[in-house]
């Protein structure tokens, strides 16, 4: 993982241990509406339990979530934005994976 990780990946720099005394945690929230956990930001805490409490205070002051995940930023492995094109190339030329690739006459119902 390089410097580039936090540029496009937008996850804070996880390569070197933070100079701050408390490690950095990334916070993920699941809202009430049945969506997946979504990344909302990060915070510092002495340990995971404290990170959960801080995340509750910081990111759910208005009932934004019913479930919180906290993950040490240093434990996240991210794809590199520099190699974005080759990394995602395998799916780039497979238009036949999409339903719109197939021509079906308008007269055929429910398809």
């Amino acid at each position, binding site marked *: 993982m390089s*410097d580039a990780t936090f540029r496009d990946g*937008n996850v804070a720099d996880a390569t070197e241990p933070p100079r701050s005394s*408390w490690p950095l945690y990334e916070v993920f929230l699941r809202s009430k509406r049945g969506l997946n956990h979504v990344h909302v930001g990060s915070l510092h805490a002495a340990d995971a339990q404290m990170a959960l409490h801080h995340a509750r205070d910081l990111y759910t002051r208005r009932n934004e979530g019913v479930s919180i995940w906290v993950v040490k930023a240093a434990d996240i492995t991210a794809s590199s934005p520099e190699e974005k094109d080759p990394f995602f190339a395998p799916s780039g030329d497979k238009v036949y994976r999409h339903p719109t690739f197939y021509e079906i006459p308008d007269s055929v119902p429910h398809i």
Partner: protein
Amino acid sequence: MPDAYRKTMIRQIAQHAHSEIIGMQPEGNWVTRAPSLRRKAILLAKVQDEAGHGLYLYSAAETLGADREDLTARLISGAQKYSSIFNYPTLTFADVGVIGWLVDGAAICNQVPLCRSSYGPYARAMIRICKEESFHQRQGYELLMTMMRGTPAQREMVQDATNRWWWPSLMMFGPPDAESPNTAQSMRWRIKRHTNDELRQRFVDMTVPQAAALGVTLPDPLLRWNDERGNYDFGEVDWAEFKRVVAGNGPCNAQRIEHRRAAHEGGAWVREAAAVHAAKRAARKEAAA
């Protein structure tokens, strides 16, 4: 990412984060003296929001490689700035209302375009912040409406607070365009979407009818509608005062920084104790495994 972009972005986000953190102090001044439990609960929630906004923004700055402790150190040493508006004192409870109405109103004007900033983590933090700022402005305006329905002395307090905060609020948009050398670069980078003067004009146009509805006079004899321009004309901001306050010589600069320093240093033992506690718990867990 060009180095200059990263540097500028860190500076901008840090300055914004510092402003939220220092911004807790002027209103925090009234938490224990709020006139009712309702107003106290509202004010506490608002001050907590400011802390939250500061933390969202520090977290955005960290995605650029900035270090949290370093940012705090730079705020305390004066190496990084915060908005000069927070260097003015809150003399009466009407100031709490006027800060919500004018200061948060100006902040919203500044911040809404930043929700489309070219730097994603900053833009996303701004979206959260703008949603919450709307509560801040409305509670302030409602507080003032309540006072305006009160005694002549209360109405006088609202007018006095308006007189004191109007010009500093206009200063929040920064120096005039002609004296803002970085604006062109920032607009090219899409980290700024409108010039200082454009945003200032927008704020004046929005605020004049609000002042009329409230029944207060904005302290500017030159303020009048210009039919040709389709905007309000207004007087010249005292830029000498602005420079004085930015340079550190406002009424409360020293007090604000001293308070932040004392809070940070006074909390050092808590941070250390929590780190030791966490290490002990981790060791116990490992020993049990």
